[in-house]
């Protein structure tokens, strides 16, 4: 299991290669990567604040829980903080499991967790404005689905 919280840029493809090589023979690997969107062509940067003391521990706990629950052979979580430019990767999750449905569900669940429970806050910086991104009810609902 590898949990990384960093400012530096990373390459999701290269990370997937490393992750896959380490779990060779496991059968199914699912990855998710999120990219900084600039829907209106006016975004200067995305600033991500995090709770340094809590982040890695909270992510590790959640990844461990997900691994047990979904029978994952391995989990990778990378999440950036600091100042990001449009089109840069923000974060990625990768899961490996014997069966594809487990790998899919594990990655999907970890994303729902990251959206609503990992201590990160995003601010969109544009010319003349800087706005904190508001949490979405849909993300809360998505997470609640897993406990149904």
């Amino acid at each position, binding site marked *: 299991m590898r949990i990384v919280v960093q400012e530096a840029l990373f390459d999701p493809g290269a990370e997937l290669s490393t992750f896959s090589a380490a779990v060779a023979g496991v059968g199914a690997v699912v990855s998710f990567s*999120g990219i900084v969107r600039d829907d209106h062509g006016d975004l200067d940067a995305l600033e*991500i*604040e*995090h*709770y340094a*003391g*809590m982040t890695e*521990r*909270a992510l590790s706990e959640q990844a461990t829980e997900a691994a047990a629950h979904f029978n994952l052979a391995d989990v990778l979580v990378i*999440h950036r903080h600091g100042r990001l430019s449009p089109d840069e990767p*923000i*974060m990625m999750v990768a899961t490996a499991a014997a069966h594809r449905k487990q790998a899919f569900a594990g990655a999907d669940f970890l*994303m729902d967790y*990251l*959206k*609503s*429970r*990992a*201590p*990160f*806050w*995003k*601010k969109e910086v544009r010319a003349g404005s800087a706005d*904190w*991104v*508001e*949490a979405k009810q849909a*993300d*809360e609902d998505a997470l609640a689905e897993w406990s149904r």
Partner: protein
Amino acid sequence: MIDILYFAWLRERIGIPKERWETEAATVNDLVAELRAREERYALAFEDVSSLRVALDQELSSFDAPLDGVREVAFFPPMTGG
């Protein structure tokens, strides 16, 4: 003495990321009441706690949780990671 941490717009409204605070508050809600009484900026920042989250010693918790033995309280808006 406890450490109180603020993140995102809460940090900006209060104007500092962290402070030490002497308190006898029994619960998070009691602590929030103390902070609100301090200054206008705290009163405004904590106006609606339903829009806030709290972590005790780096674990997500609730506003009615007791503060016994807690050393670090963090307040912040709902998270927007991922």
